[in-house]
């Protein structure tokens, strides 16, 4: 199947390995992510904090572009996913919003009818492609690897469109499909702190420390959100100071982990860009 694909801003810089591994993994599973031409920033959580209309109109521009492609719009970033999805939800809930959006997009020469279907990459892999197809593609079972499935917040909340919003398990199933074990983790949907790590560090640091502390005993953490990955990967030193214990755990994107099981090359996985070293993890893997 073919999808329109919006990687999102983080995947062009700090989460490049997510972008390359997502494209490669989906390709290996006989589907295709076709980048949406000239997509723009969805606004993350920032635009809604400064302007309601901007927070609707910016993702809506992408929806207007996607609508013209007649394909589902897939995004691999949880924040992009929620912002895009929310536009459709709001247009149904707030009739007066439609008129305003028409005026705003009209000023840019665009029109959105409300028909674009928004999907999270996790949804596409788990539900369209499916666990069986993933298991079949595995070249190297990741046996013995204890993996924390960390969903974060906006991956499944608040709408729970494709997975349980309280206790999601789509990622758990994919981790098992590639032969690894899921590490029991009650914190799988607790927030990583998002931007607090920058704006109110002492509070952000505590959230990150709690999540990393609870992952003790696992071999790696896996996520499908660039913000979660960044917070858990880049601040392990600070979390260690908060917890009073050593913290060194690789934090991979789900598609990087899948890529290891598919035996994809480093140019697709970019594991070398992860901050907490993955060398120990790679040594644990069985030869192909």
């Amino acid at each position, binding site marked *: 199947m073919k999808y329109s694909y919006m990687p999102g801003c983080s995947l062009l810089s700090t989460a490049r390995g997510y972008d390359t591994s997502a494209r490669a993994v989906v390709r290996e599973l006989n589907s295709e992510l076709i980048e949406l031409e000239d997509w*723009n920033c969805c606004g993350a959580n920032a635009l809604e904090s400064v302007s309601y209309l901007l927070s609707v109109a910016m993702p809506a521009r992408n929806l207007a572009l996607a609508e013209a492609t007649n394909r589902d719009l897939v995004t691999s970033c949880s924040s992009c996913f929620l912002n895009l999805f929310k536009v459709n939800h709001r247009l149904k809930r707030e009739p007066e919003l439609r008129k305003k959006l028409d005026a705003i997009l009209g000023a840019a*020469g665009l029109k959105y009818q409300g028909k674009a279907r928004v999907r999270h990459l996790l949804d596409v892999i788990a539900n369209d492609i499916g666990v069986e197809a993933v298991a079949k593609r595995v070249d190297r079972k990741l046996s013995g690897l204890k993996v924390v499935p960390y969903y974060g917040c906006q991956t499944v909340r608040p709408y729970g469109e494709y997975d349980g919003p309280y206790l999601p398990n789509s990622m758990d199933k994919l981790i098992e499909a590639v032969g690894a074990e899921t590490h029991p983790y009650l914190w799988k949907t607790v927030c990583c702190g998002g931007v607090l790590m920058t704006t109110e560090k002492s509070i952000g640091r505590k959230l990150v420390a709690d999540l990393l502390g609870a992952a003790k005993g696992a071999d790696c953490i896996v996520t499908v959100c660039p913000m979660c990955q960044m917070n858990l990967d880049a601040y392990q030193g600070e979390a260690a100071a908060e917890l009073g214990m050593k913290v060194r755990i690789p934090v991979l994107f789900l598609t990087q982990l899948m890529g290891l099981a598919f035996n994809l090359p480093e140019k697709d996985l970019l594991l070398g860009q*992860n901050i907490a070293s993955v060398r120990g993890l790679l040594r644990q893997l069985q030869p192909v």
Partner: protein
Amino acid sequence: MTQGQKVYELTRDMLDHNFTAQVAPDREKLQTCIQCGTCTASCPVAYAMDYTPRQLWRLIQLGLKEEVLGSNSFWLCTACYACTLRCLRGIACTETMSALKRMSVAEGMEKLSSSARFYEAFRDTVRRHGRLHEVELMTTYFGRAKKLGALGYSRLGFTLWRKGKVSLDAGANIKRLDQIEAIYRKVEELEAKV
């Protein structure tokens, strides 16, 4: 008294029912809050708030505008939607937190200006390029927020650069930047009317 508790002698002048009505997006639902506290119990940052989410809804119901808009509570909200998911009245808690951020800046009452400056720097960077440029965002933010800690981030920035995660040049703009500018201008025009 424990954190967040305060004794009020309420007078008519203090109650701004107009404020209660302004708090978007669903004031009718907000009025139905029964103070069960599920929102506060779900909130990972409630412990650091001047008023917990549950207390905040009550203050809004009462129309205590200054107490609400001058608090740090909604600035700490990360939009994790745990409260929204669990609220048994179906109140759009998270969206209300965002609305409070906007109102607080509009009234010049923001207590945590660092967050406000961050969001504004984000908005302006996206207007210039159509996409977010993380390096530009961080330098703009630290410049405007006049916040200590920039050094710590430049160290992180160095690590990210060494790993090949960020580059120092600004990166490409989207092609139809004119459409982004048209959207921003139209939004400004519509919002000025309100």
